[in-house]
């Protein structure tokens, strides 16, 4: 194993966290990395001596992307609620109780009270948000065409996290060979080598994309329409997957507005009021603050600065004391005409704007158990009451 140290000059804390995230995608020749104790350099362990030059070039390119003089990311905190929290290892506690079971990198099964809590959150979204906006329920496939992702510029913003889907080639020899290899030695990644058809689909990286492609060439009635959906989404995040704070496979619920920009902006603003009320009701510790997408391309800083300045993205970030981090559990986004243009969606004769708010159910469950633990009597009053009432209603239906 070879070690290298690369100095970090002019990167502030906010940009540094984004750089650290991105390093996971810099090179597969990086075995591990960390920021030095004084915060002045990156220390990387490489797979070989020969990798030094290649890795250094790639890491320097990323550092340049995030350097402070180029990257301006002001943060506006719109809501903040903090309370004294115990430090609870919810990940271990959930596994121990068999309420979650990890089943591969970034994949978990939820059952028992973890699944029931996800059910309560789903119920609350439906009741409060679906109702407030008269959102129409839509059902979507779990996968999405690569052509659609290309049309909405997904590959030029987030190429690193797409989980492509493919199947074996429609060829008898290939199918026979694959079956034989699995029968003889069990499946391994090598069994797929050279046998896969071209990719034409990917697992949905985001919940709402089908909504826009499904409205291609629509003339929407003024001022616009609101839809809601739940989709099992995937984002590959390299070495960043951990606990339930960053899953590869997760369940996302969205409420989407498509229409006149005023309609979209007003809907989004109302949803932000409702989420702040929700966080207050359940006494959740965290913030609602401006954010940016983790664009993984060389024009990162322009896009990210623009998003922050225009408050195009906000996140409800809930504290996870055991990991000493806050995770985004809800996001609110304004897309301007990005999707309206891509799919020729019109409203009142002009291209429609869109916006969405979204929940990651697994993250909500994880944040709640992380903040309040497993003694339900100690949970905040309203959360405890709603959870008990939800569980009673489920029991009475059995």
């Amino acid at each position, binding site marked *: 194993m070879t070690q290298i140290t690369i100095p970090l000059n002019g990167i502030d804390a906010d940009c540094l966290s984004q750089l650290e995230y991105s390093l996971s995608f810099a090179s597969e020749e990086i075995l591990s990395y960390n920021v030095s104790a004084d915060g002045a350099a990156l220390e990387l362990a490489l797979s070989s001596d020969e990798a030094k030059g290649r890795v250094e070039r790639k890491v320097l390119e990323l550092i340049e992307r995030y350097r402070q*003089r180029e990257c301006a990311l002001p943060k506006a905190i719109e809501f903040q609620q903090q309370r004294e929290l115990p430090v609870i290892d919810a990940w271990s506690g959930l596994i121990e109780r068999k309420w979650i079971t990890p089943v591969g990198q970034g994949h978990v099964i939820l059952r028992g009270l973890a699944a029931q809590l996800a059910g309560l959150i789903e119920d609350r979204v439906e009741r409060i948000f679906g109702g407030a906006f008269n959102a129409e329920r839509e059902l979507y496939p779990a996968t999405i065409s690569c052509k659609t992702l290309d049309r909405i510029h997904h590959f030029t913003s987030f190429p690193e996290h797409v989980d492509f889907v493919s199947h074996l080639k429609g060829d008898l020899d290939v199918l026979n060979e694959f079956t034989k290899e699995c029968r003889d030695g069990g499946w391994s990644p090598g069994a797929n080598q050279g046998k896969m058809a071209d990719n034409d689909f990917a697992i949905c990286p985001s919940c709402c994309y089908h909504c826009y492609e499904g409205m291609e060439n629509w003339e929407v009635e003024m001022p616009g329409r609101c839809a809601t959906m739940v989709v099992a989404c995937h984002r590959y995040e390299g070495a960043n997957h951990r606990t339930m704070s960053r899953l590869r496979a997760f369940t996302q619920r969205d409420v989407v507005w498509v229409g006149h*920009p005023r309609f979209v902006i007003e809907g989004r603003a109302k949803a932000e009021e409702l989420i702040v009320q929700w966080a207050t009701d359940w006494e959740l510790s965290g913030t609602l603050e401006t954010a940016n997408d983790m664009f993984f391309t060389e024009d990162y800083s322009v896009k990210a600065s*623009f998003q922050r300045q225009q408050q195009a993205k906000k996140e409800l970030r809930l504290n996870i004391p055991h990991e000493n981090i806050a995770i985004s559990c809800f996001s609110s986004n304004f897309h*301007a005409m990005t999707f309206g243009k891509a799919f020729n969606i019109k409203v009142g*004769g*002009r291209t429609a704007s869109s916006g969405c708010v979204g929940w990651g159910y697994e993250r909500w469950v994880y944040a709640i158990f992380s903040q309040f633990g497993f003694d339900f009597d100690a949970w905040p009053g309203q959360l405890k009451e709603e959870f008990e009432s939800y569980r009673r209603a489920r029991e009475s239906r059995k």
Partner: protein
Amino acid sequence: MELNNAINDLRAFIRENFKVPADDSDFNDDVHLFDYGYIDSFGAVELTTFVQSHFGVTVKDSDLISYPLNTIRQIAEFIVKREKGEI
């Protein structure tokens, strides 16, 4: 560069590049280009590139934060001041 010339060039670029219909009654030199949906983060990259190449002024990412660049007029004022070295 005169302010009006900068406004005219910017208006023409945005109309053409972001496909603003000729009869769009919301579109004017003082409309908030983001809130009214004309420009998104991809558009910001294109507009920044245009301003730098067409007007020959530098636009740093931090300028997007430091100056109000929400309307055609505000962007034109920024260009004129940057060209004169006032900002």
